């Protein structure tokens, strides 16, 4: 249904998800388990990423943005829809083909403490993907490449023999990035890669992402809740709410002139570090909380908090429609 409304992917599209659904069953009972409901974490999402672009995926906790990122690497199984990567259908890949895909897509996680094996040295952590994917025949080539990667992400070569606990949060995130780059991916999925870091360290890591993109021709799917960070890195932006993408398109256009009522509220909630600008801003403050994904509202998912909702919003689910500048917006109240 929604696939019919979007333009066909062109040759520069590296990742193309259509009507993607990821549902999680909710089970009750200790011994005899029965399914009592279903959480639609991702519910019919269309998402395209062009080669060399950075797509910022934003949304609040529980919006499904992390699940969407994980579904691409099949860390969460999709319940419906399709995902193609460089023309290849990801959801039907098995065994060696899937390993092959994981070589081309790297992932950087939020928690630099939980995502590194504490019993491995930093050097081995970075070398492991190369061993798994059998990229080099001998160990000295791997070692050389590890050293190169350490240089690339700004870590001292002598640190390769240390263990994760000996590093600071920012340095651990650099190790995580080096590991993600080790297999030579073309797409990096970064899931909240800087949100656990302090402001001054966060800026260092963002600058590293900027530099890597230029040097290595990378494409990023940048998942984050911090809209200012996403502003800095993204070419295109997709805004998620309760399993759906409500607005998607050119980052400049969306930040300058948000159209979906949720995007408007979200952007106006973010304080700008400048008292002069702040005192002049018009603000939309949303009432209430995001509804439980177990029991999403009928009609538009945002209708319960929307300041402009009218009757049909409570009954009919709006489909993404093209806006005049090429954006896709899922709102009954926005005309193209």
């Amino acid at each position, binding site marked *: 249904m929604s696939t019919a409304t979007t333009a066909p992917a062109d040759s520069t599209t590296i990742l193309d998800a259509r009507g993607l659904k990821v549902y999680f069953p909710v089970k009750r009972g200790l011994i005899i388990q029965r399914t009592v409901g279903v959480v639609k974490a991702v519910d019919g999402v269309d998402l395209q990423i062009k080669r060399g672009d950075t797509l910022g995926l934003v949304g609040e906790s529980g919006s499904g943005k992390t699940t969407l990122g994980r579904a691409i690497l099949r860390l969460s199984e999709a319940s419906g829809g399709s995902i193609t990567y460089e023309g290849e259908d990801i959801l039907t890949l098995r065994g060696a083909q899937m390993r092959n895909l994981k070589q081309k897509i790297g992932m950087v996680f939020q928690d630099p403490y939980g995502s590194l094996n504490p019993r491995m040295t930093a050097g081995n952590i970075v070398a492991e993907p190369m061993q798994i994917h059998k990229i080099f025949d001998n160990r000295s080539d791997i070692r050389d490449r590890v050293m190169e990667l350490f240089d690339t992400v700004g870590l001292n070569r002598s640190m390769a023999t240390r263990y994760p606990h000996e590093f600071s949060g920012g340095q651990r995130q650099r190790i995580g990035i080096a590991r993600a780059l080790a297999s030579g991916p073309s797409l990096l999925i970064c899931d909240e890669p800087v949100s656990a870091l302090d*402001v001054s360290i966060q800026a*260092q890591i963002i600058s590293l992402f900027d530099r890597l993109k230029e040097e290595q021709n990378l494409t990023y799917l940048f998942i984050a809740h911090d809209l*200012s960070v996403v502003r800095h890195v993204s070419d295109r932006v997709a805004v998620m709410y309760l399993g759906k993408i409500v607005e998607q398109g050119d980052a400049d256009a969306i930040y300058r002139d948000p159209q979906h009522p949720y995007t408007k509220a979200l952007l106006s*909630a973010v304080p700008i*570090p400048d008292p*002069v600008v702040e005192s002049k801003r018009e603000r939309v403050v949303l009432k209430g909380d995001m509804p439980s994904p177990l029991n999403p509202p009928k009609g538009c998912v945002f209708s319960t908090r929307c300041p402009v909702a009218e009757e049909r919003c409570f009954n009919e689910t709006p489909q993404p429609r093209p806006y005049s500048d090429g954006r896709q917006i899922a709102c009954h109240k926005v005309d193209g």
Partner: protein
Amino acid sequence: MTETLLKVEHLQTEFRTEGGVVKAVDDVTFEIKQGETFALVGESGCGKSVTALSIMRLIPNPPGEITGGSIEFDGENLLDLSDSDMRDLRGSKIGMIFQEPMSSLNPVLTIESQLAEPLKIHMNLSSKAANDRAQELIDMVGIPDSKTRLRQYPHELSGGQRQRIMIAMAMSCTPRLLIADEATTALDVTIQAQILDLMQDVTEQSGASLLIITHNLGIVARYADRVAVMYAGKLREVSDAPSMYANPLHPYTVGLLRSVPRLDSDKGTPLAPIAGEIPDLTNLPDGCAFNPRCKWAVDRCSNESPELSEISPTTQVACFEHSSVTLHA
């Protein structure tokens, strides 16, 4: 001139650790006027939370101890009060909200009994009167369906609602000062805006002062009248908020401002991160603790530690080179 409500002078709080004595708060001096919103900003480990806990005298001892200075609140030195006098003051004259509402609420008591407790203790209300007041408070902080909510337990509420309960509780005895320690850090941005607006409204209505402790420079810009920047246990700059943003005087303040991506800047506007890492408090660099990361550092900075000194009636800075520091290099 408005009256001073809280005056912290030369506050010194130390922790004994295996690595040696850590001066978590080192010679900190600032004051908060009646009715103003004051922000204490800094990165993790800079001592901003320890400053707040010192004001509340909630430093765990051992390993921590307030070793010097004074905290004058409403005319009396809190450090001279007996433990029981201090207990009377906490929750009545000074309210505090923490980052984790779930761990600040008792999971086995209903919202009603938790809200009524301080009213019974500090205001000698009867159970009936306290419960009635609890419902008023819940209405005040904007939680719908207050009758049902009162009978619920903390786990039945969302994070934002729990934080509203914490505000209701902290404001229940109409304190003169409300301390919010990273109170919205764990919340989503739309909820964060709701909660901060609410805190501003309730303190404005009662004429209380608000001390916001945060790492978020956007929040400071939106809500604070005055601001203090903390780094490695010391205040580096204290100023009124508009002038600090327009004309920061400490290199660390400049570094912070240039490190944060802004919602309203164009894509690709380069960030200027502060080089290096936050120092280990057990092993601080000699002289000014910021000197190894500072672009303006001169020889003197690695030998002597600059004192916080007055530049104008509203601005104090601790930097030898402040006259050459500019936001746009």
